[in-house]
């Protein structure tokens, strides 16, 4: 199946939560409960759902950043769990992730130029000049500047850090990017700029995105298909038009109805 870049089959993941003073008690949290999903090549699949429903767990498991209890993940037809460490590293260049917590994912002792160039270096792409050129170009596309290369993560605002995470993933020109709440900290103008950039790169390179977001307005603009997660299960999956026009599940309807300020932004004067 060449038109599907990523295919997940019957994924299960359970966390065991110790509890009680001595850690004797324990509860099980079913973060992924039989999740199957396909991502079409060159398209964007948004994953939405309640906080704690398993979206980030799904993202990490798809990229083999976390072991599954059960199930298989095929990337371009290859079962990722069956690869050797070296083979998996090869594939990693093509599968990038933008993490939910930007600050925690940036090494505080590295300069931004180094952080964004690191992947290029690891995968031996280009010489030093070419790498620097690529890094500068990507920083500019996410609304940062060449001068920012010399700064450290703590010198940036929340939204600037989030854009550093995006630049780091996109500079490698991967085939698949898993984005976990990539624009949640951005003002609406930068948000539009980043979403347009993602779309542009998608057209240029036939990129595929798995796009986790709680912002249903953003999802409406970026996604081709939407999958809804609820308590570890994937409860609804449809094209964005169909899902917004006629949501089937009660939970999905609630989500769509709860978009803040949906009545429009105008506020009644008291």
């Amino acid at each position: 199946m060449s038109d599907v870049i990523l295919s997940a089959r019957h994924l299960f993941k359970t966390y065991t939560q110790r509890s009680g003073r001595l850690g004797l008690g324990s509860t099980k949290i079913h973060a992924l409960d039989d999740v199957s999903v396909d991502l079409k090549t060159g398209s964007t699949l948004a994953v939405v759902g309640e906080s704690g429903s398993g979206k980030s767990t799904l993202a990490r498991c798809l990229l083999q950043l976390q072991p599954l209890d059960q199930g298989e993940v095929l990337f371009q037809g290859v079962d990722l769990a069956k690869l050797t460490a070296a083979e998996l590293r090869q594939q990693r260049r093509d599968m990038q992730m933008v993490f939910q917590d930007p600050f925690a994912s940036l090494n505080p002792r590295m300069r931004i130029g180094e952080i964004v160039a690191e992947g290029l270096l690891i995968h031996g792409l280009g010489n030093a000049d070419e790498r620097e050129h690529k890094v500068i170009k990507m920083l500019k596309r996410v609304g940062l500047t060449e001068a920012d290369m010399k700064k450290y993560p703590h010198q940036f605002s929340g939204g600037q850090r989030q854009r550093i995470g995006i630049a780091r993933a996109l500079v490698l020109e991967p085939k698949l990017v898993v984005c976990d709440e990539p624009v949640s900290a951005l003002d609406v103008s930068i948000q539009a700029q980043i979403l347009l950039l993602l779309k542009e790169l998608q057209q240029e390179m036939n990129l595929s995105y798995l796009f986790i977001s709680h912002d249903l307005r953003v999802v409406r603009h970026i996604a081709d298909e939407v999958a809804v997660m609820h308590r570890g299960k994937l409860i609804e999956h449809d094209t964005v038009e169909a899902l917004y026009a006629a949501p089937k599940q009660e939970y999905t309807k609630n989500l769509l109805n709860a978009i803040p300020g949906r009545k429009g932004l105008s506020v009644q004067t008291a």
Partner: protein
Amino acid sequence: MTELLRIEGLTIVPAAMPERMLVKDVSLTLQPGRTTCVVGESGSGKSLTALAVMQLLSKQLKQISGRVLFQGQDLTTLNHEQMRDIRGKRIGMIFQEPMTSLNPVLTVGYQIGESLTVHLGLKGKALKARVASLLEQVGIPATRADSYPDELSGGQRQRVMIAMSIACEPAMLIADEPTTALDVTVQAQILKLLDELKTRMNMGMLFITHDFGVVADIADDVVVMFRGEIVESGPVAQVLNQPQHPYTKALLACVPDADGKKALQPIDYAWIDGDGVPA
């Protein structure tokens, strides 16, 4: 003296580069029982302003002018100990990045309970019950009190921060993008919880957000920041319905619609810098 907060002429620079103003002559006031939303460009100085109120600016930054009056008292003149008494007890703060402000080696229940013990002397069963109730108010099962921060989802961590910030029912809450990791249903629950505190305790809120839907729902007043300065402020209806400054107009024009009909369009800064007339 009914005023809760008055910031006057706040200016912040990097210690190593004092000519670069990150926050420039910012002034604002907040009344008890009111909510002021701070919106604006990424990097415009919103978080630094909030951190300056809490006297938590990093050593590399310097406040070179300005006063921060909280209930009439200038916080910039207080020593560490006096400030510690106010922080967490009379002013609560929700930081923009939960992971950097939660301690990874302590359970979240312990961290929520800490300020209750320090400020209110709660211990034992009473403490445990209060922590459980706070967790449930933010939609997390009380059994998760024994979890460590990295065992929680992004939105759960954010809600732990919210529970910590309101534990002592502060007179003022500073919330820096507190709901960015929350889906709309949980977000609605949290906004309702904060609104209750506002009504019941007459709590005042300084609420930083980029989400104009949230602004429309909760703000009494709005402050717009752009390149370190406040460029516009006023009652929410006025700022959203009749924005005056070109930046505010441009920003509002970028708000994505829920139907996906309007094309995405970032701000063209050339006309803000130029004659202030949209191209």
